[in-house]
Structure formats: structure tokens, C-alpha cells
């Protein structure tokens, strides 16, 4: 997924970074439709269940029952989020990424390889998406049209996070 994101950025997204917003919207909605179409062709429109014992297993704490798959997914997610936070905060590459987020032009002037950083960041984002998708696969029946739901959910979450950050300031 990282490789996919990296290639996507260097091939397509790069050309649209400095364009106005509505052009970017058109590009990404087009990409989304393209992906959904590819999934429709390769996997078909029917919801596809994962045939796994994992879908049926639970863990009992006292009298509370939790899905094993859900617990595993949450644990892996926590580890990944913490790792990513540490990476952004402490490594020098993480500092590059934060600089690029802060000011693109300033970063370019002081010699940060902005295009490379953009590509890698896009790769990280895509890898996050793919990883979480794989984690929840025992819980959902996969279907190409789920994409819209997930995009919307991710938006709502990001807006919440932005809201939280702006309230803290």
C-alpha cells in the first residue's frame, strides 16, 4: 500500500499540488471512482465475507464479551499510532515532514527535498488506510461501495481532531 501511495503521488498528485482546490477535488473524486471501478471488475459487486474462524471468536472479561478481531485491530492500531507519532516527533525525517506541513516554500528554500517528502507522506497515509482496512476485514463484508462510507467517516474524524486542536490553542 505504501508503494501504491508513493507511485500515486509521484505520478498524479504531484502535478496538482499547486492547482486550485476544485481541480484537486475533481482529480481525487475521479481517482476514487477509478478505484471503485477496479474493485468492481476484480472482485464483483457482491459483499464478500471473510471466511475465517476469527470472525466468530470472542474474549470474555468477567461478563463483558469483546470480539477478538476487534481487540486485535484496536491493539495494532494503538501501536501504529504511537509509532507514527514518535516517528514524526523524534526522527529527523519526521521533522522534515512537519516542516513541509508548516511552510512549503520555506522548506524548499532551506533545502528540504519537498517532492520526496510529499511522496513519502502520501505513502504513509495510504499505508494507514490499507492497514486499517486489513485489520477490520474479519468484521466487515467487503464491498466496493463501502469506500464512500469510509471516506465520510475519516472526514468526520479529521474534522473532530482539527476542532480539538483549534480548541486547545
Amino acid at each position, binding site marked *: 500500500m505504501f508503494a501504491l501511495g508513493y507511485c500515486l503521488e509521484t505520478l498524479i498528485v504531484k502535478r496538482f499540488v499547486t492547482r486550485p482546490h476544485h481541480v484537486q477535488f475533481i482529480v481525487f473524486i475521479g481517482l*476514487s471512482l477509478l478505484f471503485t471501478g477496479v474493485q468492481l471488475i476484480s472482485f464483483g459487486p457482491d459483499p464478500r465475507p*471473510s471466511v475465517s474462524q476469527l470472525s466468530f471468536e470472542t474474549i470474555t472479561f468477567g461478563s463483558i464479551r469483546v470480539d477478538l478481531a476487534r481487540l486485535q485491530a484496536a491493539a495494532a492500531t494503538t501501536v501504529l499510532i504511537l509509532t507514527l507519532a514518535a516517528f514524526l516527533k523524534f526522527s529527523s525525517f519526521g521533522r522534515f515532514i512537519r516542516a513541509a506541513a508548516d511552510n512549503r516554500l520555506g522548506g524548499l528554500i532551506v533545502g528540504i527535498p519537498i517532492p520526496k517528502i510529499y511522496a513519502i*507522506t502520501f505513502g504513509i*497515509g*495510504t499505508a494507514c*488506510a490499507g492497514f486499517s482496512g486489513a485489520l*477490520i*476485514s474479519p468484521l466487515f463484508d467487503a464491498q466496493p461501495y463501502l469506500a464512500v462510507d469510509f471516506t465520510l467517516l475519516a*472526514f*468526520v474524524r479529521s474534522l473532530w481532531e482539527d476542532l480539538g486542536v483549534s480548541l486547545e490553542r
Partner: protein
Amino acid sequence: MVTRECVKQGWNPKIIFTPNGNGVQDKAYYEALGKYADGALASTMYYNPKAPDTDSIIKRFEADYPNQWLDANSGCAFEAVQIVADAVVRANSSASADIHAALKKTDMTPIVMNSGKIKFDENGQNINRHRHNTTGAKGKAASYCAARYRRREHSVSGPAIRGSLMALLWANVVLSGVLMGLVYGLIALGLTIIFGVIRVVNFAHGAMVVFGLYIGILDRTLVGHAHDRSCPNCGRF
């Protein structure tokens, strides 16, 4: 989905019954649930196992479409084609009006579906249609009369939990919600990191998540994990 939750909660109802329901007799249901699919009841259109041609039709259907079952939909479609063919023969013409008139007078013995003589009332409903009870057994939808009905053990924890049931239910739901929320958080993190750094809104993010979903399922079905060896449908995709 409902049956899956029942299995997870350790509750084995004796009967799951869907009056006029779709789904329980479908192939996808059995693939999703494997051995847990046995025992669900459905009242639906179904083929008549005692009709003389049913066996040969099923065999030919399976030869042509090895990944499908002859279910309510394909059976009804087959029967519909037969009815129209019958009407065309009786009308003895290819004009639309003649065929329609003949269709209204249809009176034929059904070939695969379970029904009395097919006759239509003025609304176009088949007045002699039958409902058929199916139940799952041995990993395949079987007609009710032929199926051995297997009872499974009951494991309801019983009245001990009834007192604080509501509180437990809440705790259960909240905990699953929080765990699920963490995963959604990871999805949103991917979106936010792209938006924050590159300043583009990635509308294709959800599609990437679904790609991940498919990869996960492919991995599980094609490769198979150590603790999945017991799962009946592994390796079938």
C-alpha cells in the same frame, strides 16, 4: 450478520426463522458462516425437489455455473422463461398483444418451482403459488422435508446476569465502540497526514481502505492462518 453476532455472543437459538425472507437460503450465507449456517429456517420460493425434472435441471445448472446454486432467484427466472415460452407456443404468433393475451390465460404445471398450477389473477399474481420451508443442513440449503434438523447445545448463561443486564449491555457496546473508534482513528490519521502536509483532500482514501479490506480477505482465504485450519470454507474464494 445477525447470525454471526449470535454465534459471537455464545447464544445458539433453536430456530432462526425468516418469513418470506431472502438471504438465509443464499449461497453467500453458507460461505460466510460455514458450519454455523446449519439450522436456519426460511419460508421462501424454492424449487420442488420432487418434481420429475428438478434433478437434471440442477445438474445442468451446476455444470454451467459451478459457483452458483439453483436458488429462488435463478429458479424463478427459469420458470418465468418457461411460462413465456408456453404463452408464445399457445399464441402461435410473435405479436406482443397476442403473447400478452396468452400469458393472461396461462395454466401450466410448473417445472422446477414449488407451486400448484400456474394461473394469474387480474393483478398478475400467481394464485396457486406455494411457500416452501428450507433449512440449512450439511452446509447447503436443503428442502425442509429432506433435511435432518440438528439441534445444538444451549449455552445461555441464564438468570445470573439478568439483574445488571442493562449496565453490562452498555459496557459491552461502549467497549466495542471504543475499539472500533481506534481503527477509524487510524483511517482518519492517514487522511489527516495527507491533508496536513500536502494540503490536498484525498477523496480516494475510502477506496484505499477497501483495497486493504480485500487484501486482508484474500490473505485469509488464500494463505490461511494457523488457527484457521478448522474453518470449513478456507481456500474457497
